[in-house]
């Protein structure tokens, strides 16, 4: 059993990891065809992962409703929403509009999902302003530098700021193009090196957390 649950997946990871790491550098048509086939499989698996995610969500909230845990009412609303949207979506064949006429699925999308998602992110502006007022204080030299840079960029990124202080536009561009770009590049390089290291560990079986838990 351990052979099926541990050794086989590790072997598959090793072989496919090495093959497709090498595939990138091999322009032969057979290599390209192999890449095409595997990416199609990836898309198919991605579709199944979506089904898996939804069924997992169903299961988690079913348990909450059955046990009447704290907040089970929200789980019930989620259940009704999910089942209703799936039923309506299947009935409308997944289309928001047919020949210019909005379907029921389109109605749910346009008049429920779009406003709700937009609202959720729109209210962030208010919380950001409140958080900025409470915590954006120059308690140290570094915090003061950050504060000054933030004020310059906030001024420079809007027409009113550029109108009041014309230099703020050029200064904010310099901060973004020089200071920000160089630091982000350093972070990107660090993250990329870390990703390469982690990938090598996964391919060679040194990192096995993706296999999940369970008895050996």
């Amino acid at each position, binding site marked *: 059993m351990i052979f099926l649950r541990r050794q086989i997946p590790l072997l598959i990871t090793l072989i496919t990891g090495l093959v497709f790491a090498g595939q*990138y550098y091999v322009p032969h048509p057979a290599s*390209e065809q192999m*890449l*095409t086939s595997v*990416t*199609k499989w*990836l*898309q198919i698996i*991605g*579709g199944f*992962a*979506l089904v898996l995610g939804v069924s997992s969500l169903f299961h988690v909230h079913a348990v909450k409703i059955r046990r009447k845990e704290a907040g089970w009412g929200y789980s019930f609303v989620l259940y009704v929403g999910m089942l209703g949207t799936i039923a309506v979506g299947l009935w409308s064949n997944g289309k*928001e*509009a047919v020949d210019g006429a909005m379907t029921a699925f*389109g109605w749910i*999308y*346009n008049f429920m*999902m*779009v*406003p709700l*998602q*937009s609202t*959720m*992110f*729109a209210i962030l*502006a*208010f919380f*950001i*302003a*409140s958080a*900025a*007022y*409470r915590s*954006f*204080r*120059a308690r140290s030299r570094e915090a003061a530098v950050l*504060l000054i840079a*933030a*004020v310059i960029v*906030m*001024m420079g*990124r*809007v*027409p*009113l*700021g*550029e*109108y009041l202080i014309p230099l703020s*536009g050029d200064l904010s*561009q310099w901060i*973004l*193009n020089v200071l*920000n*770009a160089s630091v*982000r*590049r350093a972070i*990107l390089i660090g993250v990329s090196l870390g990703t390469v290291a982690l990938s090598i560990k996964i391919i060679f079986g040194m990192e096995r957390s993706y296999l999940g838990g369970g008895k050996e």
Partner: protein
Amino acid sequence: MLGDDEGETVSFTERMLKIDRRIIFLVIGFCTLLPLLYPVGLPIKISQEVRGVYDHIESLPEGSAFLLSLDFDPASKPELHPQSISLLRHAFRKNLRVIALTLWVSGTGMADQVITQVAREMGKENGKDYVFLGWSPGGTAVIINMGQDLYGAFPADYNGKPTKELPVLHGITNLRDVNYAVSLGAGRPGVEEWYVFGKDKYKFEMGGGCTGVMAPGLYPLLRSGQINGLIGGLRGAAEYETLMGQRGRAIAGMDAQSATHLAIIVLVIMCNLFYFSSRSRARSQGQAGA
């Protein structure tokens, strides 16, 4: 400071530091609403980043294949929707062949609506001047698949028509045949993924659009030339509308954004003044006590 008594003055700064956040919400609310009702219309300076995308599209000959990936959901609609409208208008004005798709399932309906709306406005025909391929699962796998074989990745368009029969895709077999691609991304997959899995291997020219929050993170790609332009946030969309000579939601929103930014700056300055005043008061009281 008001009040003769030191205790009253301290109390005022302390009270201001702990002000009810609903007052701040009201201030931000007014700063957003009033400029939308009474617009000012300040001039918008065009940045090199946005000009990069605009100039490249301007340079494309008629009939070039322009790929637009609308990788955002309704949460990012206020910033990226105006960008998509301006880009589509520009592409249709230049009579480019527009190939649109999305890598975000929750943005599919919105993407279809914006393309249909702009195409109708510009008198363009589905299948002949543009195609909306829709969404396919897999994220980066879709990009690789399109790079290998576009018809394999999308055998049919969003309306179910076989892609091989569409005149707009004539002569295009994979991403190598695309003249210019722009990804309007609100996260992952987005601009970075299109570069890493698309442009790097299949060598097409590429630009990007993103939310204001994401823009600083894409400057390394911009500075190294990996993308030739970047439309960042509502400001970027407003700049593009200015270049197009068309006033839209982005330009209208810049007045509100200006007022809100100014309000936040004033609030931050005020909070720091109260903070330093409170700190120096506490220090002097401490010295007096000693």
